[in-house]
């Protein structure tokens, strides 16, 4: 009799990344967090209700029968609204319209569409390290190879910084995409205007490089947030901007994102996006039209919802940084997003000396010191966070790695 043997079971070779990635850090943290009922400072979503006007907009959309297929490009009114707001944001007489926008399944889906639309096998994607772990999966699925450029820690100032010479060295004729996540997950680093200009200048020597920006934390930043696409007509022509409603409106579960780019590039993004699911959830798209309009107006005593959001997160950032300092750890104070990378090497040393930690085995991420520390933190203290090394390219780790 036929049996479910390795023939039918064998997945496509593009899944090698998923099969060899070892135990995924998220499952590791989740398992222990649930077991010890630890406070969740791991995963990136709010534990409060989405704002009332946001929920109301979705309920209206459903009640008003916006429950059938949206066009594959996305709801026209939503694309127009986004185009209008982006034109204002970019200034300089910029006039975008619905043809410059593709609605996607979250920012995640937008990035995936960009990789699907533009990566051929062997193409390189340069990105800042540490990086959001799933970039690598998506890039691998579509045949690409990551080329990380590590951010440095400026020890005296205790901030993250980008060494432009390193970025320049990573670019070569195999580079197809430069992925810029700013504000940055997990460090909260925000690219400055002059850094963006330097990057734009570097890219002039590489006409085959597309810039893909992940701007999902655009509205959460203490530092000014700049738009790479808006620097000049040249940068606009070669940039694919990805963003979403998730973090801005506290609806990470809605999966409504968008891609903004020149019309020709959006056409290809549309080919990729429509093949992946034909269209995106309609009622939540419809709700977004109303939500974006309300968000531009005064909210809770601040000039707009966006100001209120940023102010709220600024206060939370200060509180958490203070809490971390008070227990003797060293936060690298972020400028944007809602994460903070923390140097816990002092406590790791103490635990090592107490023989609480196992020896590091490079083949098993569970033994990395930061993973072990996170496990100890959940079990003994009741707080769940993510080991920082998970955001780095593990293939480059060695015994000397600063896995703290």
């Amino acid at each position, binding site marked *: 009799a*036929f*049996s*479910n043997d390795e023939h*039918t*079971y064998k*997945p*496509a070779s*593009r*899944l090698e990344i*998923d*099969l060899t990635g070892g135990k995924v850090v998220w499952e590791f943290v989740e398992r222990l967090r649930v077991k010890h009922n630890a406070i969740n400072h791991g995963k990136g*979503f*709010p534990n409060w*209700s*989405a704002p009332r006007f*946001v*929920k109301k907009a*979705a*309920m209206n959309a*459903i*009640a008003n029968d*916006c*429950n*059938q*297929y949206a066009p*594959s490009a996305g709801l026209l009114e939503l694309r127009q609204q986004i185009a209008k707001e982006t034109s204002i944001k970019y200034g300089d007489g910029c006039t975008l319209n619905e043809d410059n926008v593709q609605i*996607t399944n979250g920012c*995640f*889906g937008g990035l*995936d569409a960009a990789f*699907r*639309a*533009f990566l*051929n096998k062997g193409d390189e994607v340069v990105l800042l390290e540490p990086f959001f772990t*799933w970039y690598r*999966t*998506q890039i691998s*699925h*579509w045949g690409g190879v990551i080329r990380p450029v590590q951010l440095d820690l400026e020890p005296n100032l205790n901030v993250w910084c980008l060494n432009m010479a390193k970025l320049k060295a990573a670019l070569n004729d195999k580079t197809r995409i430069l992925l810029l996540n700013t504000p940055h997950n997990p460090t909260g680093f925000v690219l400055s205007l002059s850094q963006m200009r330097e990057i734009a200048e570097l890219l002039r020597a590489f006409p*085959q*490089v597309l810039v893909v920006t992940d701007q999902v934390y655009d509205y959460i930043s203490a530092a000014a947030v700049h738009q790479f696409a808006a620097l000049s007509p040249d940068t606009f022509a*070669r940039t694919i901007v990805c963003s979403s409603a998730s973090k801005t409106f506290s609806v*990470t*579960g809605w*999966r409504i994102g968008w891609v903004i780019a020149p019309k*020709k*590039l959006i056409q*290809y993004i549309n*080919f*990729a996006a429509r*093949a*992946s*699911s*034909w*269209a*995106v*959830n*309609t*009622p*939540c798209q419809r709700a977004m039209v109303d939500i974006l309009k309300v968000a531009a107006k005064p909210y809770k005593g601040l000039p707009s919802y966006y100001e209120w959001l940023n102010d709220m997160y600024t206060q939370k950032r200060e509180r958490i940084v203070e809490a971390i300092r008070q227990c003797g750890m060293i936060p690298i104070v972020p400028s944007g997003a809602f994460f903070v990378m923390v140097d816990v090497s002092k406590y790791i040393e103490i635990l090592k000396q107490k023989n609480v930690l196992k020896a590091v085995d490079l083949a098993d991420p569970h033994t990395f010191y930061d993973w072990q520390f996170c496990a100890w933190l959940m079990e003994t203290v009741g707080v769940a966070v993510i080991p920082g090394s998970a955001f780095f390219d593990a293939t480059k780790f060695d015994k000397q790695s600063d896995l703290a």
Partner: protein
Amino acid sequence: MSSPFATPALRLKNDLEGGEDVWAFVNRLRIKHNAINHGQGFPNWSSPQFVKQAVINAVTNDFNQYAPNTGLLELKKQIAKETSLKYGNRFALNENNIQITNGCAGALDCTFRAFLNPGDEVIAIEPFFTFYRTQICHSGGVLKTVALDLKFDLDRNQQIWSLDVAKLKAAINERTRILVLNTPHNPTGFVLSLHEMQQIAQLIRAYPKLLVVTDEVYDRISSVDVHHFAALSADTFARTIVCCSAAKTFSVTGWKIGWTLGPASLIRCINFTSRGHSWSVNTPCQRALVDILRHAQQPYQGFPTYYAWLNDMYSKKRERMLSAITQSGMSPITPNGAYYIMVDASKYMDILRAQGVFKRLNLKDPTTYYDWQFCAWLIENVGVAVVPGSAFYDYSKFSAQSKFKFIRFAYCTSDDTIAKTAKKLKLIAKLLQPQIASKL
């Protein structure tokens, strides 16, 4: 000349060739002439009240953050439970047998992405849902088709769609990685019989590499028994991935909540590609579906279940639509399931050609195919929008001798709409065959 950075990936070649997209073509003309929409496959009525209420509740109750990337646990459990029942309790399914996806389209795409290597062949029955081709191409696969035949059924005294299993056998070879079985079938409404499924199960035993992927999105809409390939035996279950969704069943085509169901080891691979595409699927609609599925099992509007009500509603619409089409002088091929009808309109196409109304056929330009031109004529002169049938075929096989006979009607429309359409369709005979029109 295009900038180097603007060059799309090689996998988009299918999207770039083939001229204007059929959906864009029909929608553009339909909107321009305000024609009645029998083209795209979504209902023009409100979703049922209990369905809308379920998602309103989910949003209110704060189901607005990330669901697990495998899907909401309660939803997976509910689907597993119901499917176990559907499969006669011969398989003990649980949440590990399910992956929630962005609709059935997402289920199919994630499945192709999980299992196709470059050069792998995928067999689909032709005509086929247009998007299979693009999805398969993006994942490096090559689409091979096996055409349904039209045969005259003496019992029903009419033409019916039929599958010649010998043709299917001839198409399968060492390179075949996936066999897609869409039943009930879009666009013909053909439903695979139990016997045909058993024959297929038998002939694929010689090909251990072959996975069966079923698209069962219309499985609640059929006038004949719907069988489940995965449920035939432990052997078929072990090698089948079932794709389905809430869209057509609950009239929420815009929610994009679907699922794949199969052996845990295969579903795990689909989880990799699903999380790779969009991390997770819309949460409030997933949560809503848990309540919706439970509600649907109960008596509804005088029927034993919502499903019985749904199927009855569609079977009545099917009859009305068939009657409207027949009275117009066109020849519908009676479907058994789904909510489409393929209609032979060649008689009228021939008249228009003879009258010199049609442009010359240019195989490189789909807008010149006779069925496309007839659809344009129908929209403009009669005010009814349908989809040209050739769009569901492998255009690489077209030649100057191709017939382009069919147009596809969707009847997921209100009774009011069907009645209006019936009146309009009578115009065709008046316009093209006035001498016969009065006799129809």
